[in-house]
Structure formats: structure tokens, C-alpha cells
């Protein structure tokens, strides 16, 4: 590459593009062969999808008023997501305060908090839910504990970055007139990060609702569990009705969250 020219020559660029595309396509072909995945199976085996669709087709919505457990499952899913967000958010904030350079003077504590967050962040939820199901039993409680765990890790990192990116001048000003560390956090840092915090917590609720449905499949309770059960016993019409319910629930909660967030942040009552 000729750095002196300041730009890449067209011939070099072509060579680069050719290399990248050849490497990518060879890699994809190798991956497909290794897995035994044949892309044409979508067309040759499409009749399986058609069969399944015809089995599911009139979705059995009477399930919702015939079966009381469905209403309970919706309540479970929503409360799982809510508790996961609230408790996980509090834990995340605590971890973030411990890990951020602005709020924690001791390097050792910071490193430990950061390490904990890193570990929690990369552990897949599959393992966490399996452990919690074995500890507290199948049900929404296990799912909720998993959501708390995941939220604390994922959003702790985010909150820490928010704290470290905050404006330093107000904190210094308050500190210079004799405020304690707690007062600096309360009066300089907190008002700055609160709007972002609230917005992120609404986002966390959204994510948790979706993850909670996925967790149900591994024994976390809620709508996901009902869906998995319906699939297990091959009640495809019930399953399709539950799918519609899931989509409706998620879209509806998204709208509600949007509305609430706009009201909360728009009014500026959080200052």
C-alpha cells in the first residue's frame, strides 16, 4: 500500500476487495459443508413448513379464556421483567458506582467490581437459568433471578461508562466548597446521569421481557413456558395463539414504555 499517495490506488482496492470476497465466500462454503447445512434445503424441504403451518392454522384463541394459567403466565412474564429491571437496575447502579473512576477512589475495589461485571456480562443466560432452576425450582422466580443477574452485568457496564463520561466541573465545584463524597454523588453526579439512567431502564425492561420469554423455555415460567409446553405436546394451534399473544404483549409494552418515558423525561420532574 502506498501511504505516500494519501489514498488507495484503484488496482490495490480491487485486489483488496477480491481477496476479502474470496476469503469470505470460501469460509462460508467451508462452514456450510462442515455443518452439513445445505442452503437449497429451504426450497426442497419447504413442504415441512407448509405442513406445520397447516397444522397451526386456525389459532385456538379460546385458550385464553378457557385456561386460567395463561392469564397467570402473562402476569408472571410481566412481573418477571419488571422485578428483573428494578432489582437488576439497583444492583447495576451499585456496581457502576463501585467500578467508576469518579466515584471510587480505591483501585482494588474498582478492579474487583469491573472483573465481576465482565464475568457476569459474558456468562450466557442458559447457564444462569439452569443453575437457578436447580436452586429454587422451575417457575417465574428462577427466571426473575436470572434477569436480575443479566441486567446487573449488562447495564452495570453501561452505567459505569455513563458515570465516567459525565461532566467533571460540577463535581469539582461542589467538592471545593466542602461537600463529602456522598454529597458529590448525590448533588453533582446523580442529576446528570438520571435521565440517561431512566431511559436505559426502560430499554432494560424491553430486553428483559423478551429474554424472559426465552427463559421460559428453559424452565423460567411465564408465557415462554406455556409456549414450550404447547409445542412439546404438539398442540400447534394453541402454540400459534400463544405466539400471537407474545408478539402482542411485546409490541404493547414497547408502546407503553415509549409513552411513559416521554412523559417522564419530557416534564423534567426528575431534576
Amino acid at each position, binding site marked *: 500500500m502506498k501511504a505516500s499517495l494519501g489514498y488507495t490506488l484503484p488496482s490495490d482496492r480491487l485486489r483488496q476487495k477480491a481477496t476479502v470476497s474470496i476469503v469470505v465466500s470460501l469460509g462460508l462454503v467451508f462452514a456450510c459443508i*462442515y455443518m452439513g447445512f445445505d442452503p437449497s434445503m429451504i426450497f426442497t424441504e419447504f413442504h415441512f413448513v407448509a405442513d406445520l403451518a397447516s397444522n397451526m392454522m386456525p389459532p385456538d384463541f379460546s385458550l385464553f379464556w378457557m385456561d386460567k394459567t395463561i392469564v397467570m403466565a402473562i402476569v408472571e412474564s410481566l412481573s418477571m421483567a*419488571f422485578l428483573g429491571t428494578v432489582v437488576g437496575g439497583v444492583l447495576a447502579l451499585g456496581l457502576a458506582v463501585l467500578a467508576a473512576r469518579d466515584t471510587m477512589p480505591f483501585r482494588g475495589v474498582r478492579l474487583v467490581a469491573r472483573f465481576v461485571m465482565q464475568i457476569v456480562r459474558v456468562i*450466557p443466560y442458559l447457564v444462569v437459568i439452569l443453575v437457578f432452576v*436447580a436452586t*429454587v425450582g422451575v417457575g417465574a*422466580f428462577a427466571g426473575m433471578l436470572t434477569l436480575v443477574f443479566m441486567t446487573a452485568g449488562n447495564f452495570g457496564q453501561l452505567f459505569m461508562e455513563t458515570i465516567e463520561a459525565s461532566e467533571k466541573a460540577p463535581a469539582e465545584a461542589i467538592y471545593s466548597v466542602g461537600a463529602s463524597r456522598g454529597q458529590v454523588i448525590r448533588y453533582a453526579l446523580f442529576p446528570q446521569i438520571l435521565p440517561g439512567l431512566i431511559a436505559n431502564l426502560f430499554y432494560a425492561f424491553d430486553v428483559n421481557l423478551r429474554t424472559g420469554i*426465552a427463559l421460559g423455555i428453559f424452565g423460567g415460567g411465564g408465557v415462554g413456558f406455556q409456549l414450550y409446553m404447547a409445542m412439546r405436546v404438539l398442540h400447534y394451534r394453541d402454540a400459534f395463539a400463544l405466539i400471537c399473544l*407474545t408478539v402482542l404483549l411485546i*409490541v404493547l409494552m414497547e408502546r407503553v414504555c415509549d409513552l411513559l418515558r416521554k412523559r417522564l423525561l419530557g416534564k423534567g420532574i426528575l431534576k
Partner: protein
Amino acid sequence: MNTYSLRRYRKYLLPMGCMALLTWLSALGCGVHLASAWRTFGTSIGYFSGLLVPDWSAFSDLWGPALNSIFISVVGTFGGAVISLFFGLAAASNIAPPWLRQCTRFLLSLERALPEIVIVLFLVAAFGMGPSSGVLALVIGSIGMLGKLFADAIEELDMGSLDAIKAVGANRLQVMVYGVWHQIVPTVVSYTLLRFEWSIRLSVALGAVGAGGIGLELNRSFQLLDYHRCCSALILVLVIIVLSERGSEYLRKKVNVGGTLK
């Protein structure tokens, strides 16, 4: 007035009360039973201590499934990204007619509302267990996320250069390739890499439901109470996730404005 007077905080009383009530209600809804959980906590800690000691001999037959998981997410993300380009074009307001845009946006948002794991449940029911269900679930999941992101990227295009290309006599295809594609390449690549990180994480859970790979091994060895093997699989998963994050971060930094590598 005293700064520390409680009167200052009176306006927070109602929202805080509502939050406390909601928390209490949802704790009832979840069936939270902290006392008994605390009691079982001690025994389960001892029970799961096996999760901390890996079975070193298990690695030799775990790297195959691990590779499978990686390939599932690579192929799924790539396929999803390619298809999302068309969805992105169809959902962009400056390229597509309004009716097509509304339809596509609606479809994409509907798809985003479905978690991938539910999709894979249905695909497993249709195609059976195997990597194909996982790949297809990731393709469908990627379309929901990337289709919207690509559409937003296309909507922010500089329309002037598109007009310029049109003005010198390019047909529709040429406008797409030289006007649209060349401008959005960096965005497309970085979003795809971001989605790849997601896919790697998802492929673990998808594997347990029926896509195979390291997720299946993890789930199976957990169910068989073989915690040492489970720990080995977990270590592999952690390595894969961290490596994929680092790799995609590195690549994202390297892709510059022209879409070429630096």
C-alpha cells in the same frame, strides 16, 4: 429552608409509593420466596461447586460442537445481512414507495417482537434438530434487526450524489450499486459485525433448544449432572464470546469510510 428538609422530597412520594406497590405486586406474581431460596442457597452452592473445576479431557470432543456453534452464527448472520439489504431498500422512505415501506416496516417490527428462541422452536418442529434450524432462526432474527438498521442508514443517505449519478444517465441498478451501496458499506459492515456478537451469544441458547453445537453440549452435560464437563463447555463459550467481541471490535475499527480495509 433547611436543605435537608424532608419537604424537598415530598414530590417523590407518589412515584416512589407506586413503584413500591408495583414491586410488591410483581413479587407476588413471580412467587418470590426469598426465605426458602436462602435456605436452599447453602446446599446448592456446595452442589454446584463442581462447575468451577473443568474436565480437561472433555475439551478434545467439545471443540467440534464449539466450531459448529461459531459456524451457525457466521452463516446465519451473513445470510441475514444479505437478505436484510433488500428489506432495508424496501423499507427506506427515499427509495421505496410509501405502501411498500409501510408494509416492510410493519413486517420487520412484527419479526423483531418474536424472540429467536421461539422461532427456532418452530423451525425444529418443521425441519428437525440440526444446524439448519439454528442457521435459519439466526437468518430470520438478523433480518428483523439489521433490516431496520439498514433502512435507517439508507434513509440518511446523501441524496445529492444519487441525483448526480442519475443525472449522468445511470439506470436504477447502477444507482443502487454506485449511489446507495458504496455509501452504506461501512455502516452495513459494522452493524453486521455487531449482530454477529449477538448471534454468537444467541447460538448458545439456540443450541440447547435444538440447533446443536456447544449449547446442546452445555445443556446435556448439565442435565446429566456432569458439572466438570459443563464447566469445560462454559469455558469454551466464554472464550468464544470474548474472542468474537474483540475480533468484531478490531474489524469495525479497521473498516474505514470507503468500505476498504485500512
